[in-house]
C-alpha cells in the first residue's frame, strides 16, 4: 500500500503526520520524502544514510563540427532550451525538460546526450524501516524529474518485494504535488481548521480527485479557527480520519525535532487508528481501482 501525506497549504503538519504514522506502522515500511525542495522528514526520523547519489537529467550537448544549423532541434524544442544563431547552436541547459526530442530529430547526429544535475537521492535505515529522500540542487527549477528518480531508485532496490510506503509530499496543487501523489493507493490530506487551511484543502481535493485514489482528511491543530473545514468535508463526503488537538506543548515538541507520538505518548492510539483507517480506505476502493498499464 502506498500512502501519500499531502496538503494544499504548507506547514499544516504533513511531516508531523508522516513521521507519526511511521512510528506506529505495524508492517514492513519505507518512508519517502518527496518534498525535494524543502525535505524535512529526515530531521524527525534521523535515518542512518547508507547511500547518497547524484541524480541527473539528460540534456543535449552539441557537436559543432556536425551541426548544419538546419534548426530542426530549435524548432522542436518547446522550452526555449535551444537557440540557433546561424553560426552557433546555443543550448540553455537549465531550460531543458529532458524530452530527448532534439537528439532524436537531428538528422546529422550532432546532438549527444549530456547531463544536468537535478540533486541527490539518499537511502538509509530509520530503525526497522527504510528511508528514501530526494534533495533538489539549489538553483535547479524542476522537482518532478528528481521525484521520479527517487521513486525509480526505490523500485530498483525493492525489486518484487512488496512493502508499504509512506510518502511525505510537497505542498501545493500543481505539478510537483501531483507527481508525488499520483501512484498512491490512498491520499491523506492534512489541513488546519483555518480559512487558509480550508481554501487550500479545497484546491487540493479538486487537483487530486481526478487521480483516482481515495482521500481522507486529518485536521491538525484542532481547536483553533472554526468549523468550516468539517462542514466542507461532510458536504464533499470526505472522511475526517482524525483530529490532532492543538496545544503549544505539541508545537514546542515539533520545534525540538521530536516525533509527536514520542513527545505525547497519549496520541499513539490516535495514529494507530489513523493507520488502520488509511488501510481500510485503500482496501475499500481497490476493487474499483483502474488497472492502468503505463508504458
Amino acid at each position: 500500500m502506498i500512502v501519500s501525506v499531502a496538503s494544499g497549504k504548507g506547514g499544516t503538519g504533513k511531516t508531523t503526520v508522516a513521521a507519526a504514522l511511521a512510528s506506529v506502522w505495524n508492517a514492513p515500511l519505507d518512508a519517502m520524502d518527496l518534498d525535494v525542495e524543502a525535505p524535512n522528514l529526515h530531521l524527525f526520523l534521523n535515518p542512518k544514510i547508507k547511500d547518497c547519489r547524484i541524480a541527473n537529467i539528460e540534456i543535449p550537448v552539441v557537436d559543432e563540427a556536425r551541426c548544419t544549423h538546419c534548426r530542426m532541434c530549435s524548432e522542436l524544442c518547446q522550452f526555449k532550451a535551444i537557440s540557433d544563431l546561424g553560426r552557433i547552436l546555443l543550448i540553455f541547459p537549465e531550460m531543458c525538460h529532458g524530452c530527448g526530442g532534439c537528439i532524436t530529430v537531428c538528422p546529422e547526429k550532432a546532438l549527444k546526450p549530456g547531463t544536468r544535475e537535478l540533486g541527490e537521492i539518499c537511502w538509509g535505515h530509520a530503525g526497522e524501516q527504510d528511508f528514501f529522500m530526494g534533495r533538489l540542487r539549489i538553483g535547479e527549477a524542476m522537482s518532478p524529474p528528481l521525484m521520479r528518480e527517487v521513486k525509480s531508485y526505490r523500485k530498483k532496490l525493492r525489486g518484487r518485494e512488496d512493502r508499504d510506503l509512506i510518502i511525505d509530499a510537497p505542498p501545493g496543487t500543481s505539478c510537483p504535488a501531483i507527481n508525488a501523489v499520483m501512484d498512491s493507493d490512498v491520499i491523506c490530506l492534512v489541513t488546519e481548521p483555518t480559512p487558509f487551511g480550508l481554501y487550500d484543502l479545497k484546491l487540493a481535493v479538486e487537483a487530486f480527485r481526478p487521480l483516482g485514489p481515495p482521500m481522507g482528511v486529518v485536521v491538525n491543530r484542532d481547536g483553533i479557527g472554526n468549523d468550516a473545514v468539517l462542514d466542507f468535508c461532510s458536504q464533499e463526503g470526505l472522511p475526517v480520519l482524525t483530529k490532532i488537538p492543538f496545544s503549544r506543548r505539541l508545537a514546542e515538541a515539533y520545534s525540538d525535532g521530536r516525533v509527536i507520538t514520542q513527545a505525547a505518548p497519549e496520541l499513539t492510539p490516535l495514529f494507530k487508528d489513523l493507520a488502520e483507517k488509511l488501510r481500510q480506505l485503500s482496501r475499500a476502493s481497490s476493487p474499483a481501482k483502474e488497472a492502468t498499464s503505463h508504458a
Partner: protein
Amino acid sequence: MHEIVIISGKGGTGKTSLMGAFAHLALNLIVCDLDVDAPDLHMLLHPENETSEDFFSGHEAIIEEENCTGCGLCADLCRFNAIYSKAGVFSVNPLKCEGCKVCVTFCPEKAIAFPERHCGKWYIASTRFGPMVHAKLFPGAENSGKLVALLRQKARELAQSRGMNLILCDGPPGIGCPVISSLTGTGTAVLITEPTPSGIHDLKRVAELCRHFKIPAAVIINKSDLNPRVAGDIKTWCLADGWVIAGEIPYDMAVTEAMVNGQVLTEYLPSNSLMRIAIQDAWKRIESMIQAQRAA
C-alpha cells in the same frame, strides 16, 4: 521602483500573514500574490477584480483515436511515461504530459493534436491597501513559473502607470520553479523562518538560493519564542553566514483570529500588542534596508 519578495522555503512559517501586515504598513504600493499554486492573500485583502484574463501556457498532446493505427511509437519515445494503452487504444495522460511535442513530431500518421493549454486566470484588482495583481493556476496545472513571471511583469507595468514606487510580493514555498521565477532580478527578498528544525533547514536552502541569484535578503524569525534555543541557532547562523535579521515576531494565536476575521494582523491587533510592535519594527528595518540599497 523597488520589488520585495517574501519567501520561506518551508510552508506555513507565516509568509502571507506577515505580507498582509506589511501591505497595510507600506505606502504607495502594488500588492502581488505570486503563490499562484495555493494563493491565500486574497482572504486577508478581499480584492475586487477590475480585469480578468486567461492564462495559456504550452501545449498538450491529444491522440486522435480515429487516425491512430496503434503503432506505439509515441509511447516508446515519451520520456514522461505520459502515453499508455488500454485494450490497444493509446491515450495521453494530461497530468504526465509535459507538452514537449516529441510524440506529435514523430507520429507517422500525424494523429496527435497539440492544442494550447489553458492553465489559469490572472487578475488586476483593487484592495484597501492599493492595487493588487494576483492569479489562480488551475488545480494540477503546470508552468506556474511562467505565470509568476507574467504577474511580476504586470505588476511592474501597473506600478509605472499608476506612479507607485513599491511592489510587495507574497512568494510560494519551496526553492523550485515558481520560487526561482519569483526571485530572479528582484530587489530584496524577505525570508520568513521559524525556530524549528524544518524552519532552519529550509531557511538555509532558500538563503543559498538568494546567494546563487545574488539577491539581497533579510531574515524574519516568526514564532521566535516557541523555541528560544533554535531561535538562537538561527541568529548565530545568520550572523556567521552574513544575513541581516529584520525582526523577531512572537508566537501568537492572533494570527488565526485575524485570518478568521479576514483582517491583517496590524488591523486586528491592539496598538500596544507585542506582536504588532514587532511587526512594525521589522517593516521599518526592511524599509531602511531598501533605502540603504538605493543609496549604495
